[in-house]
């Protein structure tokens, strides 16, 4: 996996809805602001997945509009004013059903790929 390939990966280039799932997952434990969400996705995927910044914020706002995320303005550790996102109850159940679907999907893809080699 080359760096250039990682760099191109984004919500819209991944399977539709994948970015949404990643966002929902990262905000599950504690409220995070946008930068932290991007960073968390990168770190949790051990650097494999990186989110294009231009796509992150529209996704956050869209999820908020759908009621899957809720937001609150607060202070960062360093005292900066930031908008923190947290998954809602609705977002949680969406995440559950969608991750199950994703797992099934990737198992299926993996099965096809391994069967063919």
């Amino acid at each position, binding site marked *: 996996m080359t760096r250039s390939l990682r760099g191109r990966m984004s919500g819209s280039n991944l399977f539709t809805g994948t970015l949404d799932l990643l966002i929902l997952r990262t905000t599950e434990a504690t409220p995070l*602001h*946008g*930068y932290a969400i*991007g*960073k968390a996705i990168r770190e949790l995927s051990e650097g494999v997945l990186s989110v*294009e*910044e*231009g796509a992150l*914020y*529209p996704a956050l*706002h*869209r999820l908020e*509009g759908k009621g899957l995320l809720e937001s609150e*303005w607060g202070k*960062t550790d360093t005292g*900066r*004013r*930031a*908008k923190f996102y947290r998954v809602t109850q609705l977002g949680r159940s969406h995440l559950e059903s969608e991750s199950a679907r994703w797992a099934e999907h990737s198992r299926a893809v993996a099965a096809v790929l391994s069967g063919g080699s």
Partner: protein
Amino acid sequence: MKRPFYRAFRPGQIRSDESADIRDEIELYLELRTEELITEGMDPAQARQAAEERFGDTRRVEATLRGQARRRRTREGMMATLAGVRQDLGYAFRTMRRSPGFTFVAVLTLGLALGGNTAIFSVVDAALLQAMPFEDADQLVFVNGTHRVDGQSSIRGASFPEFRDWKERTRSLTSMAAVSNISAALTGGFDAERVPVEVVTEDYFEAMMVTPTLGRTFRAEEHSEPGAHTVALISAGLWERRFGGDPSVLGQDVLLNDRPFQVVGVLPAGFGGTALNSEVWVSEAMFETLTGFAPLEQRGSRFLSVIARVDQAMGPDEAQGELEGVALALQGEFPEAHLDRFAELQGFREAYLDTTGQLLWILMGAGVLLLLIASANVANLLLVRAHGRTREIVLRRALGAESSRVASQLLTESGALAVMGGVLGLGIAVLGLRVLGPMIPQGVLPGYVEPSLGAAPFLVSMLVLGIVGVVTGLLPALSSARMNIAARMREGGRGAVGGMGGRFRAQHLFVVAQVGLALVLLVGAGLLTRSFQAQLAIDAGTEFDQVMAMGLQLPESRYPAREDVGVFIDELDRRLSEIPGVAQVSIATDLPFRGGSSGAYIFRADAPDDRIRFHQHVVDVDYFETLGVSLVEGRTFTRTDGADAPVVGVVTEAMVRREFPNGSPVGQTMYLRPSSQRPVLIVGVVEDLRLRNLTTSLMAEGNSPDVFFPLAQRGTRGLEVAARVVGDPVTFGPAMRAVVAELDADMPVSDLAPLTDGYRAQTATPRFAAFLMGIFSALAAVLACVGMYGVLAFAVGQRSQEIAIRRAIGASAPSVARSVVYDGLRLAVSGLAVGTIVALVGSPVLESYLFQVESTDPTTFLTVGAVMIVVALSAALAPALRAMRRDPAEALYSD
């Protein structure tokens, strides 16, 4: 909900702090990213730039985010509004269920006013606006030959020479053509019938802008060579009826007045010429061939209609000016034949609507008044209602409802009422049209008009009521927006005298206006009804109830000589008399109310220069007896008044009054031509009888007196047959038709109908007008009554404490009731005063429809005033009784 309800209909607005938030969010990201890059070892000077580059176009992302925010806001607004509306509607229906009386009255008022108006407006709309069955019909005009004295024009026909002069000498009128509307016997291979025929000149089809669907119109030589080309065009209807729509009809002959005419063309369906129902068209070159009558070249023989198109570049005013010039020039050239002759343009629509147009406008005006009354009622009901709910509104405001929320609630309630009223109104309109449509007498509307429910009339009516509803619905809401809730709460939500006084005054004004408008409508209905009764009371001078009539035309081809006609008439008379139930038969040139009498001039022997215009009637010896006309002096005709006997005549009393004021005309002689050697001896005078228009005075300038001549002395081929019968005249129709068929199978019978039909047709329009106005005014009176009831009941409710106090300090129950009735009467009298003034100013518009009734008829005004007082009293009755019965103690302690 923080936003005013109407915001929902605008695109969502994004607040400035939201934009700032978006910028902050991105800025934070960039800052944190920059720091991260620095910790990764990047040069701090380049880190910020690198972070921005990696982020991409910040402005584009910001714009995306702002767009998202805007869309979300719009959606939220709509959702909130929808939820609000749902809540309001639920509340509205619960409110309605709680007060079924109010709901019922409001919906019924709306429904009746909407339905009635929509029905009437639909008829008017159809008549005034529906397309006429002609291309570009608004350019089409009749060029009427008129007789104008002292600025008063009466329409007469035009003669051929005159028509040619008009056509040649005008430039502003194009495609001018002359039309003669006649009828002809259509025979040959099928049942004989009389069909309406138009004899037309060149350019007729150009003027009408009509092209045959089959075949062609007339060629130039078919117009220019008299008697040479027996060709005709037929209507689509006739083609279907007689030829089954077979295209091979072209080249076939039809027998018109026993002469074969070759069909050269079929005109499009729906085209019926100037008469709207014509079925055959022939060229004017065939006029004599068809009718055996050659009046074409006589300048004074005025029997043509003339049509033309107004040149669009010049317009009707210029055309009329040009015609005036031509008419004056012709008066100079032909001083005798063109004495007082003018030519005047009349648009087609105007011509077809004739006097009905004005009647329709009057009915529409009545409809508008009714709508106003209904609007006042709705406004009043809503005001009363709003007042009754002041406490509720105050409470809701106090509990935190925004004034916009309260307004939207009140509007929703009005809206729900309007929708229910609208649905009811639509139903009433549909039903009304179905009932009214067939009741519209023939001749009131032109044949091409088919009244049908119009969307525009309904929407306009709905809009008027809607505006009223919104305005009155909003008034209480607006005052609630301003109201001092704390003060109102202290008052117990009853409303201060000052605050509610204005609204109460408004209600009074509405009631006064309603009573006034209702009076106007009632006066209109009353005048029309009295006028109609006066028409029914006219003594027509004839007894026509039991008379069946028919028209016959004896063709010259089969009845060439006067003797042949005489033989036919005698045989017809004899056979008709033998029909069981037929008491008496009379044959004449014309019969009452069936049209067709011709005008002529007669000259007195002692004043040969003084020509007397009269209506000529040629009648047999049984005429006066069959029609029940009484003899006043002298004798009527006898069998001795034969062809070789001295020429005799019978005149009417009107003729005596007009021309022989100094003595009896019996025994005097008159002449039909100034230089004639054959005198007419006047042998008798009969009572006045009305043969044409019921309502035109027999002494009127334009109404010439009648003179009768014996059938035996003056031949005629056009016969009108009257049979006095025992029983229902209509049942004798088939037998009479059979007698004619026995005598001549090819002779069509026309207008087989009781004489009363003609009489009814004359009284149909006033009957219809009086009927419609009656419905309108009755509705108006009911609505005014409801309005007044509402206000008085409301006032009694308002004054219950005052009334209780008065009762407590000794006022008797009747005196309390009296004061309520007195309030009602005061409102009614104010309304009557206003209404009377309006009615006096407005009633002259009815004048041309009134017969023997002045538009200021005191009887009508007094009767209507009395009716309105009774209406006011009945409206006051229930509230007065309630005030009387209310237990003073209960009223005092309540609330």
